[in-house]
């Protein structure tokens, strides 16, 4: 059916050998942790790298998603957004990419401490999921820049 | 200045002739009239005099130029027009067609300007479609009275 392991053919591996992640926050750290243990790419802590992914900002919002018949919140929708830019060979190839993720959290006013703990795990999980999506986006625009370059 | 009109008037020109019958003299080409601080340059000038000795003149030029020193200040009055009438009796100077009068930096343009030499008041009118233009430049304020 045409599926092959990613990376076995050069086209689909990450198109850079050295990478640097700029920016603070848990998402930036997750990107660094993942790439740090990624065999075929060298993570550069500081100094220049072939590709730089700059985390511009992350936002988290918690909105009432549904209410029960006694007018109490029964569900929140947790939205996490991350904006990042990508430079390749010190030329900007992606000015402002955004990744958005959702999680629904059922709510129970009687167990607020445990629900807050669950909320924290959901947010941390989104900050891990965002790593693959950011690398996918960065990889695609770098590949495109390489194919356009002479 | 005020006293100019009592001063003798002399006229120079390339040629002047006196018409006894009409009691007037007509001068043409490079006519220069001087009377006290007032000087008039014109191409053609007609001078008449009434029984009381008041002089009247009218003339043309391309343009007629008129200059006179003002009483109260060191500034000069200058004027130009295509034609002019001078009435010594009433002390009126009338300038016609593309006329303008300038005193220090204030200028009045118009088709027909009447300048009262006694009151230094001038009236400017424009032909239909024409316009009168006045420019007033405020004087440097002399030291104002100390507050």
């Amino acid at each position: 059916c045409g599926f092959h392991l990613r990376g076995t053919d050069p086209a689909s591996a990450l198109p850079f050998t050295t990478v640097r992640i700029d920016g603070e926050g848990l998402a930036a750290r997750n990107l660094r942790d993942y790439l740090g243990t990624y065999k075929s790419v060298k993570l550069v802590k500081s100094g220049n790298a072939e590709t730089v992914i700059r985390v511009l900002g992350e936002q988290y919002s918690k909105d009432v998603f549904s209410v029960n018949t006694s007018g109490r919140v029964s569900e929140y929708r947790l939205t996490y957004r991350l904006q990042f830019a990508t430079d390749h060979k010190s030329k900007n190839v992606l000015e402002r990419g955004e990744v958005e993720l959702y999680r629904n959290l059922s709510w129970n006013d009687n167990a607020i401490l445990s629900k807050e703990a669950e909320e924290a795990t959901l947010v941390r999980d989104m900050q891990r999921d965002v790593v693959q999506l950011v690398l996918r986006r960065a990889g695609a625009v770098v590949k495109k820049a390489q194919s356009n370059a002479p | 200045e005020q006293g100019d009109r009592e001063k003798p008037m002399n006229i120079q020109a390339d040629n002047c002739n006196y018409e006894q019958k009409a009691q007037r003299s007509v001068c043409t080409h490079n006519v220069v009239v001087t009377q006290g601080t007032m000087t008039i340059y014109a191409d053609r000038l007609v001078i008449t005099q009434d029984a009381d000795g008041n002089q009247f003149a009218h003339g043309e030029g391309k343009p007629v130029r008129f200059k006179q020193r003002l009483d109260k200040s060191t500034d000069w009055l200058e004027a130009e027009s295509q034609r002019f009438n001078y009435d010594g009796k009433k002390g009126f100077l009338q300038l016609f067609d593309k006329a303008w009068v300038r005193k220090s930096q204030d200028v009045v343009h118009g088709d027909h300007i009447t300048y009262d030499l006694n009151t230094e008041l001038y009236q400017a009118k424009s032909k239909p479609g024409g316009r009168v233009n006045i420019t007033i430049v405020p004087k440097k304020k002399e030291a104002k009275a100390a507050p």
Partner: protein
Amino acid sequence: NPGEKPEPPTFIQSDEASAREGEFAEARGNVVVTREKLKVEGDWAHYTIQDDRLRAGDKVTMNKDGDVLTGTKLDMLVEPRKGDLLDPTFQMAKGAARGDAVKLLFEGPDRYAIKQGRMTTCAPGNNDWYLHSSTLDLDYNANRGQAWNGWVEFKGTPIFYYPWLDFSLDHSRKSGFLAPSLGMNSKNGLQVQTPYYLNLAPNYDATIYPRYMSRRGMMVGGEFRYLDLDYTGVFRAEGIQDRIDDKSRTSVLFQHAQKINPNLGLSLNIQKVSDNNYFSDFGERLSVSSQSNLPREGTLTYSQETWNGFMRWQRYQTLSTLTNPVDKPYDRMPQFYFTGQPQIKPWLATNISGELTDFNHPDKISGLRSWAYPSMALPYNESWGFITPKVGVHATSYNLHQTNAANANYTRTLPIASLDSGLFFERELKIGNGNFLQTFEPRAYYVYIPYRKQSNLPIFDSGETDLSFTQLFSENQYSGQDRINDANQVTLAVTSRLFESDNGIERLNVTVGQRLYFANQRVTLTTTENTESPSRSDWLLTVGARFWKDLSANYGMQYNQADSSLRRSDLTMTWRPGDYRTLNLRYSINRISDTRSADISGQWPMGNGWYALGRYNYSIKDSRALETLGGVEYNAGCWALRLAAQRYVTSVTDTTTSFFALLQLGGIAGIGSNPLDTIRQSIPGYSNTYAPPRF
């Protein structure tokens, strides 16, 4: 004074003129007087040079920098711009303010005082509203307008009188009245709110919002906000002598966030209300009125590359009412938490987290709990997949205060081992004329945690978590630390994603998965343990799709194989094709919480300035509308009208119905936060149809 700019010359043009040098000039017939950018035209003009005074008459038009004033008689000192104009009309370029009056006084450059006049910001020819005033002061240097005792006329009828009104002329952050709003509410009766904004300084401001309620009386509220380089905060207080309950009711909120230094942060979040029904009575917004626990916490956070942690004092005011009983949560006074990733070896991911908390509760067992959870993982990441073995030890100790006996001490120590592994398969795909990349990502996650007796331990912060892929791929199904499930289980899941090849944007993701239990799970939240538990979890399916930039859909399903029943099914769709156009649809069935509801909301332009908006959140199981909102907005360019009616549930038997009317006169009242923010809360993607006109 030396270096004074030479005064500009004055030019007078007319059909006729008479002048005396140095004294005056009088012109008649189509007079045009100009000085720099000022131009005055009239039938006649008289200019006296000494005092720089210009009089003009019968039909005067004055023009400067786009401001156009007309009148019957002008008498003005030109340079100082002092004087008056009779029977004036005015049209200001800046702020589009125009109008007419009995008299206009020039009070210096760009300052006008307009007597017995009326003003509007509508374009000429559109006389929809006028602000009448006995005195209207327009100061275009300070960009501030003030009006004294007059009335607002809307479409010919006076709608409200005012003693004094001030507003900004260039819509910058200027002190002034915000748009007043009128409303009707089934609990509070007629409501009139006239917020006043005070721009105290570039980095702090305040808003006072008196709010009159016909059935309860006058509530006065105030909000003070401050913002600085490394701290920001808001203080809000409201109070009313409530006629119905005949007592004073207040609410206070104080939030402060500060970065003490790059690593240390402080945050305070203190909220308090005088009684439990405060929000359901006064909360205008559903999200506010449905709040049951108000936090009172102070947190000191420390964060740095390797170590993070916080020290927190946290209590809650619980708004428990007869119709809505709510359990009071434990106070955590204090709570100390830390987590760190010390790097011993680059290929070894070590992590240690721990917490020490003093839990207190008036009628539940209280005590000290401390836990630590060091762990090591060996993440092996390749482009084709990953393998991550992880081992750790979770140790917890309790020091519980017994009312009658000595303190009871319990400890619990258990190893936790997990193996996470996954593969990434890909293939190119051509759909239509787009190149896509489809992935196929199988993942297996095994967890082993031995059984430990925990039914004698208190429940401080543990609870049931929703079945989600986050939970399926975590070690402990219970949130918090009081219960750690015994586990010998594996989670199997497959994810397939569709990416656009040239930009890597994910267009579709589908994940399906389930957890298989190799042993019986005995640990529960209650004191009785499970004797036998299911051998497999429910199936879980999630779908996320973003077809085009403006149409996205999410679907989540939880299916129980044993009794082949649908536990949860949740579909949400959002369509945002453009400005002011949004449509949200949601249908959800949840057998666990026994709810079934449909929720539709949207905003749509109806053409020539009209916008409709609405929300209908209907609980099919209880056949009862949880929230209904309908509204129309009309944007006429120089004014906007918003009408909204909302009904939402405040308890099993009780609902609150409220109507809002908000007339925003362009330029007159700044657009501040107003009760209609409820629309923004209720309709995701709602965009304000009347942003203040840009000058």
